[in-house]
């Protein structure tokens, strides 16, 4: 899957996503049309310059390992254990960010903060 053969950009049939939603800025435009192959979005319709580069910037390629622990490659399961230990041992853990993620993940983050008795905060406070 990760064999990066760029000259012939795997011309799988392009599929079209209508009414796609752009989450780059707070406008959250929901009228975007995306043309994509298995690996990347090749065309955007109605997106602004910021939206277009947002969609084209993220691909389905495997550019990074699943997880890193102290900078070394690791599996999700190993990283989950280390992360859980860190959060469990902390007296005052902080859950931060939450802008560039879904509401479903935000719900989990709230649950996590409650579970470890920490602080939860978003970009709003900046």
């Amino acid at each position, binding site marked *: 899957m990760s064999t990066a053969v760029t000259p012939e950009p795997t011309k799988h049939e392009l599929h079209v996503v209508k*009414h796609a939603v752009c989450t780059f800025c707070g406008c959250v435009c929901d009228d975007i049309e995306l043309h994509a192959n298995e690996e990347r979005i090749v065309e955007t319709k109605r997106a602004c310059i910021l939206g277009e580069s947002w969609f084209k910037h993220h691909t389905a390629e495997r550019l990074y390992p699943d997880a890193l622990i102290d900078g070394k490659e690791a599996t999700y399961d190993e990283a989950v254990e280390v992360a859980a230990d860190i959060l469990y041992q902390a007296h005052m853990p902080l859950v931060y*960010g939450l*802008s560039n993620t879904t509401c479903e993940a935000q719900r989990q983050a709230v649950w996590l903060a409650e579970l470890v008795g920490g*602080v939860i905060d978003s970009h709003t406070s900046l």
Partner: protein
Amino acid sequence: MSCTLGEVKNRADFIIYWGGNPAECHPRHFTRYTLTQKGKFLPRGRKDRTMVLVDIRETMSAKAADIFLQVRPGKDFEMLTILRALVKNQKVRAEAAAETGLTLEQLQDLVNRMKAAKFGVLFFGMGLSMTRGKHMNSAAALTLAAELNAFTKFVAMPMRGHGNVTGADVVMRYTLSYPFGINMSRGYPRFNPGEYSTVDLLVRGDTDATIVIGADPGATMPKPAIEHLKRTPTIVLDPKVTHTSKLSRVHFTTAATGISAPGTAYRMDEVPLPLRPALKSPYLTDEEVLKRIITALQKKPAWQPAVKGGEQIA
């Protein structure tokens, strides 16, 4: 008092942007929601609307404005307060108005236009809410819009940046009853911006571990805050290896929101929209990684708020 962008499109004949540059930061705000669209009660679109831009410098957005008011940096609160006084027909000294970099006539003209509008909107950006005065500025803007309702319909709306930051506010509000900066260390939510807001916590060194989801504080925060993130164990969930990942103990690569991860995102007017991802990611979503961490935590003995001599410590 706020409304949806749909209402703005169909009804707003008077639009103020204050301390924001939508032409460059929210490029489709004008064309999709506020200015150029024809609305139900504004059949001629742009011709039926008046747009005022208030900013400290003439940005790209000024080209789209009918009136550009250049406020002196750091004088937004003063300008808002004078506008509120003028709305109530109180006397304002010309020298006080001059402090803001504008003349009393300009400000009076703005107030006359606001009162004469059928449906006014005040969009305020980070130029207002993140500069001298901060949340006092936002409060003054909201109060101005509220007070104008004695004369006409007037609403205010913040121009939210990063994708789903509005969703974070909404989710925290309906789960923990506050929008951000919430401390759960006593087992119930406590809200105190300035005390429990991230930059303050990190700069003071109050936290001893951090999990960062969909953000890159390592690239944006003040240096002492970043130093503290380095000093204490940090966990990052992000589609890319970010600046923060590089100073953290654990990094998870996750699917990109809306591109390869499905879910819901809130628009700045608090309308939730379902995402339609176009790609299949080889990585887990933020949601799934968080679920797994929670499952791992639940296997450990439950955490209880610390109690010492009958008194809770946190």
